[in-house]
């Protein structure tokens, strides 16, 4: 028995010494980088195979749009007089004559045309969605945060604009002010932010009553800083998801307008215009004129939708 006490004592001391040592180690460790909610979301996104595949396809399409022009053997507006008049027989896709995707009905190189169409369609989609994101987010966040009568007036304006059939407005704008890409941007941008502002306002209303907003108000942070520092970063998840779903919608709208013949004008082109031309010459046996633009159109839309789905699952794991 007497021998037990010192033994126990030293052991106890040892444990104490160890824990003190580990405490000292923790105290002197360098600053730990925390894992933000963004980092968590990124991890979940990477584990989503469909979304990652979509992202890869989208990157390939962008690379094609940016650098495809270097591979093209012909400029996009040059008519190849060798094939003109016999497009169905000589204008098919071939590596021998350099028309990788064949030629269009006028004998222009379809590869160069698809590169150009991809550039314009992606630009329309991204710029249209960007206008929607910036305008819609700010408008919705302000309406939701300020609340009361301001909110009422701002949202009724949105309701009124939404009541206008927007395809009609775009067509009217293009007919009245001439058909140009910039007018197309104006028309799409004018109306695309409405949905976004509604979604953002709803989110802001639910965020506004959180205690961390109250804490910021109590300490005297200005409204503009509360919106920028506290509301917007917490909205970004929803906005990112909606924006990725908005890009294909914009592309679809532009394609539809171009399909009607009101969108981009020659010598410019877009997926919609190319598909329209291809569809017009289907019965003459030049199916490639429809197939190539349609292929790029479909895979891009699919990958945007997969990315949007993946982002939603990654950013809001509870909401599956």
């Amino acid at each position: 028995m007497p021998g037990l006490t010192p033994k126990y004592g030293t052991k106890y001391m040892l444990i104490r010494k160890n824990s003190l040592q580990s405490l000292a180690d923790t105290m002197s460790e360098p600053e730990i980088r925390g894992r933000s909610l963004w980092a968590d979301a990124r991890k979940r996104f990477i584990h989503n195979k469909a979304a990652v595949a979509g992202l890869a396809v989208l990157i390939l399409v962008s690379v094609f749009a940016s650098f495809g022009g270097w591979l093209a053997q012909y400029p996009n507006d040059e008519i190849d007089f060798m094939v003109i008049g016999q497009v169905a027989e000589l204008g098919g896709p071939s590596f021998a004559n350099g028309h990788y995707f064949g030629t269009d009905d006028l004998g222009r190189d379809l590869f160069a045309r698809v590169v150009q169409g991809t550039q314009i369609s992606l630009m329309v989609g991204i710029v249209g969605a960007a206008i929607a994101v910036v305008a819609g987010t700010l408008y919705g966040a302000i309406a939701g945060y300020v609340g009361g009568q301001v909110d009422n007036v701002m949202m009724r304006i949105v309701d009124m604009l939404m009541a206008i059939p927007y395809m009609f407005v775009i067509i009217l704008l293009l007919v009245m002010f001439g058909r140009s890409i910039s007018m197309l941007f104006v028309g799409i941008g004018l109306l695309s932010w409405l949905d976004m502002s509604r979604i953002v306002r709803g989110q802001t209303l639910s965020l506004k009553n959180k205690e961390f907003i109250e804490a910021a108000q109590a300490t005297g942070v200005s409204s503009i800083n509360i919106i920028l520092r506290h509301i917007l970063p917490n909205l970004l998840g929803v906005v990112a998801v909606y924006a990725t779903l908005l890009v294909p919608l914009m592309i679809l709208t532009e394609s539809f307008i171009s399909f009607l013949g009101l969108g981009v004008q020659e010598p410019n082109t877009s997926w919609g215009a190319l598909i329209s031309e291809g569809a017009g010459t289907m019965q003459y046996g030049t199916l490639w004129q429809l197939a190539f633009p349609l292929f790029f159109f479909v895979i891009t839309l699919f990958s945007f939708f997969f990315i949007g789905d993946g982002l939603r699952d990654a950013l809001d794991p509870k909401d599956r």
Partner: protein
Amino acid sequence: MNVPLLKVENLKVSFKIRAEGDMPWTKPRVLQAVGGVDFELKQGETLGIVGESGCGKSTLARALIRMVDSSGQVVWMGNQELLGLDNAKMMSFRSKIQMIFQDPLASLNPRMTVGQIIAEPLRTHQQGLSGREVKSRVKSVMEKVSLLPNQINRYPHEFSGGQCQRIGIARALIVEPELIICDEPVSALDVSIQAQVINLLVKLQREMGLSLIFIAHDLSVVKHISHRVMVLYLGKVMEVADRDALYENPLHPYTQALISAVPIPDPRAEREKRAIILKGDVPSPLAPPSGCVFRTRCPKAQAICAAEVPMLEGITDRTSHQVACHWV
């Protein structure tokens, strides 16, 4: 030192309630959340505020920092009235009065690091500070609330409830306030963590000479931390007294019922105890009873209670013990 840090007189808060489907011209109903509260808070003192849910405790706290509109007077250090100030002049007082919230995790922005959260009041009130100075202030205040300073870049969801509440306390402390309003700071925490947080608050109060307004519905917690205790019922003060006087000699029937309901951590004593059970529910604040608001549930209620509102008055031998009851 006789000037109280905060002197509140006849503070009233009312909300206009519109029912769903009301026409724009119908008169909204008025909900009197706080109905004329007076109290004084001395420097370095803790005032505990207790009462049932919905009796106006949190609204009272929010009125003091002007988060809700109110009438009456809130006098700072005997010479500065706060409720009438414009927003720019109020800013300097916002750094002197800080607040701690109930839900520790919800009161921290999930997208910001701990360092950014704690630094926010500092960045708002002392905008000239360099990034390095802000960081060193944040680290020193984190040490003060026993958080490891190397966790400055972590995010709130990586901390436990008690740690989150300490982040909230650090955020309140960084601007060196004179008064901290604690709105049920421990209600959402485990009992063992409650003790940690409360002891931390007591320690900080002693070190920094802080005054605290401590809102809770747990009477034993309030007993542990407060110097004075105020009992609210339906937005009115029922009784204010020094802690020991209130707990040992409660005079108002409501206070008596509340204190008799506190569980005693001894099964034998608990079995012997006679709790005063109040009948019925708290009346709706939209239609409070006439006279004394407590009369509908009071065992002593008589005709006079319905007719006259009892004044909050000091009892004869000690003026610091004030009761609003006709029968004291």
